[in-house]
């Protein structure tokens, strides 16, 4: 069981790297779906071992909201943006940003290392560093990408990372918190999606990195 959880963790980090480094917007979105499925899988495995019904519900919520509802929403709101623009503008080129991302993963491990010395639960030992790496890589994706939708995916990756660490630390988190978080994410995705569409209508592009100041007509 820990083996499968470790596999989920390894692939989770790989998808986070992909969200930082992939050139196509639609590919990043698909990777995000895969990442959410991995998160649900990890929650399911931990729930199975701890016998916690909460984590099954968490896995279900993650699957429905993140692997299905958010991508569907983004397809609906931004289908033109997803299909017409194939390449994402970046502040750094892809190999450089991937190397920095690998560095961030090591930093994530050293951040959580003092905590790992205290706990002995094998799931926490896997999920905490991986989740922390997810949070850092998501933040890094927001910094390095210059477009609205990939930045949104960065936020969602941060959120996924926090959940990935969370399911192992607190297997009995109140369901209310999980529900609130899930809806929070949904609202974020909706608002950013609509805002992006608005920006695109007004300015003709979603290269938010290029927008240095507000314009008045």
């Amino acid at each position, binding site marked *: 069981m820990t083996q499968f959880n470790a596999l989920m963790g390894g692939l989770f980090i790989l998808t986070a790297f992909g969200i930082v480094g992939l050139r196509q917007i639609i590919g990043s979105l698909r990777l995000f779906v895969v990442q959410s499925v991995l998160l649900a899988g990890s929650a399911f495995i931990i729930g199975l071992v701890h016998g916690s019904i909460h984590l099954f519900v968490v896995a279900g919520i993650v699957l429905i909201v993140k692997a299905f509802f958010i991508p569907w929403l983004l397809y609906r709101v931004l289908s033109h943006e997803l299909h017409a623009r194939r390449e994402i503008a970046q502040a750094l080129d892809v190999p450089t940003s991937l190397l920095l991302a690998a560095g961030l993963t090591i930093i994530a491990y050293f951040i959580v290392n003092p905590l790992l010395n205290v706990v002995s639960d094998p799931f926490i030992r896997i999920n905490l*560093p991986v989740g922390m790496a997810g949070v850092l890589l998501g933040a890094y994706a927001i910094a390095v990408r210059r477009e609205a939708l990939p930045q949104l995916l960065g936020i969602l990756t941060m959120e996924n990372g926090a959940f990935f660490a969370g399911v192992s630390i607190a297997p009995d988190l109140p369901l209310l918190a999980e529900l609130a978080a899930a809806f929070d994410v949904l609202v974020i995705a909706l608002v950013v999606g609509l805002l992006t569409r608005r920006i695109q209508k007004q300015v003709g592009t979603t290269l938010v990195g290029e927008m240095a100041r507000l314009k008045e007509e």
Partner: protein
Amino acid sequence: MAEKIFFNLIQLLVVMVFSPLIKGIIDRLKEMIQSKRGPSVLQPYRDIWKLFNKDEVVSEQSSWIFRLAPYMCFITPMFVALLIPVLTDYPLFFAFMADMLGGGFILALGGFFATLAAVDTGNPYGPMGASRTRMVGFLAEPVFMIVFFTVSFVAGSTIPYIVQKVWVTPFANFFEPSHVLVMLAFLMLILAESGRIPVDNPSGHFELAMIDESKGLEYSGRGAALMKWGGCMKFFVLLCIFLNVLVTPWGLAGSGSLWEVLVAVPLILIKMFFFIVVLVIIESSLAKLRLYRITEFMGAAFITSVAALLLQLLEIQG
């Protein structure tokens, strides 16, 4: 002792005989996916046979390197075939001579001579293809290194016969995250090293877009046959390393009986067939990358292998 030498020779023979078949099956499957009938799976044998019976034309401007290169390309995969587990899961007579790094160096020697020979001719496409091959090669090198570091770090050894046992005993080790990531990185490496589609188009006939093929353009007759056969064997050997050491180290002969060794031959071919189906699907569903995008593809492979090493170093394992 004599038995081990005998098995080693069988192993070599299997590599020599069946490697064109693998290429034939790939070509046939690719055409079938494009809803054509495609050439017979035996076509590579016929090509090689025909080329052996033709006259060889050698340019007056070329030097001895041009004449030596086909033999190097033909011999180096045969040496590697002596070292790696093709049919047995215990080391055979010649296996003590080199580990996986040694095998990599021997394969690289053949590639080196092919590159030199391409520069040696006056053909303008030769040096172009040669320099591109070197570019892909030096981008692949770090991935190669990190994959080997990870593998030897996990297994405590770079001998392929030891590595293959570590990954599957107990079976749960197979799902170790670093193992899965190493498999992914090595798959991308195989695609790049053997010139398959996201990096290079092996069936393309447009010289300006060629990477790997343009090195052999000047050869005719026996030279061309040896280059072609050597290329098939190199691919076969790479597949053997990938499948028998990293992915599916099952179905190999465990004891010293001749019967088991003979049964291992169809088993390795079946394994290869399944892998080839995956390969053909990858090749048919992707487009060839632009030359400067290859950096990003190899960067992705590199980061995958580094992630495997990191997970191992940071003790994220089951």
